[in-house]
């Protein structure tokens, strides 16, 4: 079972809870029965952040956890859209479209070892992944890296699932002072290992390089500015390693957001434009 694409819904979802879990990091719990029933780890939704036409575009957000009738979103207040999300009180309804995109392959038993590598708010899609993996008896190791201690999220969640968790911060304020890719290298992934990476583009690139160097398999969950979320606008593309003109670009919204890292042309990617 790969995560998508299946049925998609456009629903008015009630906000059940919306709390600041760390400075500028929020968790929103939504009642979304039809979306929750279809959602797979690594998939995402498009959320309307304001009933008026500003911001005009919706914001892509992946599912942190997927429950029976509900989903949670773990998000960072980045700009105006996410600030509006943070200001949405429980009881209000917001338009949510999903589940969208292709998520993580949680059923593949080709790999003995699974290592999750989260950078900052990139951790947001991994709780559901870890749960799905442990549900079939695979306990992933987890690296959580961030700039500072207070940006380390979900540590307890992964520990309670039984995962070995490695925390690293850029400034050493929690865990070891290291970058995610260095922690990964130290864990010695090999060809029997699948690495799942999500975080800032530069972190995904270095993590992916480290995984490939070690001979591991690596999937990344990419970010891109999106308009439609449905594969129609062709706005969210990244350069692929395919030569053919028709395959030169992959759409993060429908071809991803989760990609095998070998499909992505990291050299072509201009980090100066990173969102």
């Amino acid at each position: 079972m790969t995560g998508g694409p299946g049925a998609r819904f456009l629903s008015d979802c009630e906000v059940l809870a919306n709390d600041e879990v760390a400075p500028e990091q929020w968790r929103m719990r939504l009642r979304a029965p039809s979306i929750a029933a279809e959602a797979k780890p690594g998939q995402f939704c498009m959320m309307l952040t304001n009933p008026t036409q500003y911001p005009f575009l919706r914001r892509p957000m992946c599912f942190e956890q997927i429950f029976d009738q509900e989903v949670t979103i773990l998000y960072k207040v980045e700009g105006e859209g996410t600030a509006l999300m943070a200001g949405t009180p429980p009881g209000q309804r917001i338009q949510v479209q999903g589940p969208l995109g292709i998520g993580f392959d949680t059923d593949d038993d080709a790999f003995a070892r699974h290592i999750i590598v989260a950078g900052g708010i990139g951790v947001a899609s991994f709780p559901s992944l870890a749960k799905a993996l442990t549900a079939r008896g695979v306990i992933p190791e987890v690296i959580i890296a961030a700039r500072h201690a207070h940006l380390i999220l979900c540590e307890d969640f992964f520990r309670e699932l039984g995962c070995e968790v490695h925390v690293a911060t850029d400034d050493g304020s929690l865990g070891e002072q290291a970058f995610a890719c260095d922690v990964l290298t130290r864990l010695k992934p090999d060809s029997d290992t699948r690495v799942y990476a999500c975080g800032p583009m530069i972190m995904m690139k270095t993590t992916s390089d480290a995984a490939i160097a070690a001979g591991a398999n690596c999937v990344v969950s990419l970010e891109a500015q999106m308009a439609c979320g449905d594969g129609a606008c062709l706005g969210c593309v990244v350069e692929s390693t395919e030569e053919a003109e028709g395959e030169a670009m992959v759409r993060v919204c429908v071809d991803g957001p989760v990609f095998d890292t070998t499909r992505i042309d990291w050299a072509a990617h201009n980090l100066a434009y990173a969102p």
Partner: protein
Amino acid sequence: MPRDATDTDDMNLAVNMGGLPMKNPVTVASGTFGYGQEYNQYFDITRLGAVTTKSLSLKVRAGNKPPRLVETPAGLLNAIGLQNVGIETYLSEKAPFLRKQGATIIGNIYGHSPDEYVELASRLEQESAADAIEANLSCPNVHDAKTASGAVLVSQDPDAIIEYTKAIRSATTLPLFIKLSPNVADIQEPALAVQEGGADGVCLINTLLGMSINPKTRRPRLSNIVGGLSGPAIRPVAVKMVWDAARVLSIPIIGTGGICTANDAIEFLLAGATAVSVGSMTFRQPDAPMQVLDGIKTYLKQHRIERVEELIGAMEV
């Protein structure tokens, strides 16, 4: 039995768009609706007056480098650069779906020369893969913005418009519409050139040229530097251009630009458009075209207007 009895009952919604019978005036803007299939999961796309395809070129195109999108106040800039599957893949993979559903198709085409447009239009007609042709002479995103002088679009040059239009006209018997750029001093000039070239209609407007710079990185937010501005932000500009063009044309207009609601669509009809296309709003609200259609019906009922055609150009001055 027709798939949607409610719509076909409402015969008062029908318009004739330059020889293309549309069961209602609502279509979608090229490039904002993919090839139709993407949105069939949110509503029955055959309820639309027509489905307008992404611009098709002879060869498959990868388009511009990312980033290609940036949000702006009440709008967005795009620099997709006409990424599309190419005409042959459209014919073999996309058109069959639309035909099977029973959609009315406006095939939007983009070429580098009159010959390319001719070939594209001929292929669409030969393969019955479109019910009308919309030639995009106004894409702002297929030139190198860095060249010192602003790129000249075909649709900024009335003589070129006439040349291109005549060529395409001679190649197809399908209703032919030409899509124009708003980046001109006076929209009446290119609009009249379209008419002189023998087309059956004009589509107004394509995006306005614009750009955005990130103060943090001091770099343009689009890798192409320049992009096309769309969305509600540009609606007043589009309405004005439709009104200007409608006053001098005898061929009909498809009005486009920032249409979000039925009221917006009605603004375009009142200004003189015969049909309207919903574009960027679909990104915000995937069933926006249906909401616009349903809202037009409600408006007609509320105002006891028998036929939607009565609204065309009916602004009172």
